[in-house]
């Protein structure tokens, strides 16, 4: 960890990333929405539903890095325009993934947070570009990456002059095949020891199983995560991407009714972690 000049924990205050009034790094920030922007109707309906359930931000992919080149690749620019409309209607800041360095400045015109996906964590050209974008970056952990490799990627963004990096643990590859990935919850306290950057958890991609998302959300909050990013679809059975792991708005509301009180309880009963 010697090369972490900007990301390391040394003599630094905790970073709080302000996104249109929402502070990541203080309290619990919940980001929710569909895997992909499929249509205006689906996106706007889901945006209203997650807002009603108490989400702080909206997620949705316009550019999708898919395992197969024949799978749905996202709506592109059209998707960005739909996300912008969802923000106009709900006021929720928008988190969306960028996969191509040529798209970074354009995505930054539409979105509030640029997401770097697990497959692109070590795409250094892309990291440099988002470092120059002037937008906060949500940096997902590479599915084969160590904490040190992950933090070095954060360092790439910080070193371009962008202080607003949010880390996101989304599960790593292990020999276990029942779950899609293995959620490494120990990353939360470990990251807090190693860096001043906020860390949130993605219980959707890490488990890939609907029944596990609720319990892992609760565990994440108990471990001290600064937030959650959860896939919610207004009609999961019709989703064009990752249909099996998207929560219905009702299921999401149920989880929200558990994690918010838990977070306040912990905040009031434990000395603030610094």
């Amino acid at each position, binding site marked *: 960890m010697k090369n972490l000049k900007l990301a390391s924990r040394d003599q630094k205050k905790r970073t709080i990333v302000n996104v249109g009034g929402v502070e990541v790094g203080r309290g619990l920030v919940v980001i929710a929405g569909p895997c992909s922007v499929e249509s205006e109707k689906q996106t706007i309906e889901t945006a209203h539903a997650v807002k009603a359930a108490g989400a702080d931000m909206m997620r949705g992919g316009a550019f999708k890095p898919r395992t197969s080149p024949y799978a749905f690749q996202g709506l592109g*620019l059209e998707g960005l325009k739909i996300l912008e409309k969802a923000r106009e209607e709900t006021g929720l800041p928008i988190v969306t993934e960028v996969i191509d360095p*040529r*798209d970074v*400045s*354009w995505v*930054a*015109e*539409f979105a509030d947070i640029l997401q770097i996906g697990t497959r692109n964590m070590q795409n250094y050209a892309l990291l440099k570009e988002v470092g120059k974008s*002037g937008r906060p970056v949500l940096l997902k952990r590479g599915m084969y990456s160590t904490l040190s490799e992950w933090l070095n990627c954060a360092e790439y963004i910080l070193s371009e002059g962008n202080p607003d990096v949010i880390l996101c643990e989304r599960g790593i590859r292990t020999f276990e095949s029942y779950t899609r990935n293995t959620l490494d919850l120990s990353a939360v306290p470990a990251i807090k020891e190693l860096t001043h950057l906020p860390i949130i958890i993605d219980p959707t991609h890490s488990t890939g199983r609907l029944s596990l998302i609720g319990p892992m959300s609760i565990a994440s909050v108990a471990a001290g995560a600064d937030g959650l990013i959860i896939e919610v679809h207004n009609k999961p059975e019709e989703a064009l991407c990752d249909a099996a792991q998207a929560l219905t708005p009702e299921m999401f509301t149920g989880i929200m009714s558990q994690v918010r009180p838990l977070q306040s309880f912990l905040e009031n009963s434990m000395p603030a972690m610094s």
Partner: protein
Amino acid sequence: MKLKEIRKHIDKIDRELLVLLQERMGLALRSRKFKETTTDPDREEDVLARIERMNLDLVERSFSRQLLKTIIEESKRQQEEERPLVAFQGEHGAYGEVAARGLVPGGAYIPCMEFADVFRGVEEGSLDLGVVPVENSLEGAVTQVNDLLTSTELKVIGEAKVPVNHCLLATEATDYREIRLVYSHPQALAQCRGFLMRNHLEPRPYYDTAGAAKMLARENPNAAAAIASELSAELYNLEIIKRGIEDSPANRTRFLLLSRNDYEGVGDKTSIIFVTPHKAGSLFSILHLFAEAGINLTRIASMPLRSEPDNYSFFLDFEGTENDPSVSEVLNKMEEMTVTMKYLGSYPAANGDKVEG
């Protein structure tokens, strides 16, 4: 040429045909003002015969006659609708047209090259109404228009405040990632400077915002986009890549509606222009009258006199009309205190941001 290329050319020609047709319809509507009726068999036969004398191998004479006849029929149909001809400066899609559409729904909107053409056309009666910008919230007064207002006999019968909502437009075939050049009026380019820099786009000055949009539609140059109104996108079938790309969102232009006659109803706002004698306190004593009468001023601007560069004419807008005793009393007193005094008109005040840009 490959099929794809041939089709691209055909599409381009179709767009050009329509843009030219739109221009022809506008001229046909204007010609109506000079004619007793819409039918003029001699002129029609003349036009058709002249077309037939063009011996184009691939366009049969009978076809060109039939085509032109159809166009003339449509012109006559439009002439008979007798929509008011509303003039604005710029090409179709200009912010002036956005204002005109808001102020006079259902009009026929006629583009003019210069502001002076708008004034002259309405003054002479070849156009019914005119829409001109007087000031912009970022750039200040539109001096040419204010200058023309000092000498015109036209009356102000309405106003509109149009939010300037610049859009980045490109043809459907253009991939946004390939855009390098952006054409627009220098003022619009300056207002979107931050956006252009962030996306590494090179500004290319053009004579008009809507003119740049029209050029894209007609010529479809490579790697090019335009900054213009949402209306331009609609008129020329361009894709809106991004709305609201101006650096400062509070950008509005105030337009006036001009007519040969006074506003027919009861307005709630009045515009005047006056010149005071060149002596101490003369402007103050006039403003004092308004203050004492409790009349709220909504605009005060000054402009050097053309004839006398050291002296100024003052533009004053205020709430109320001549029908209010307090206002007419102030105006009467002003007659004696000013060198010249010009009443532009009383009209309904624009309420907020009703007209969408």
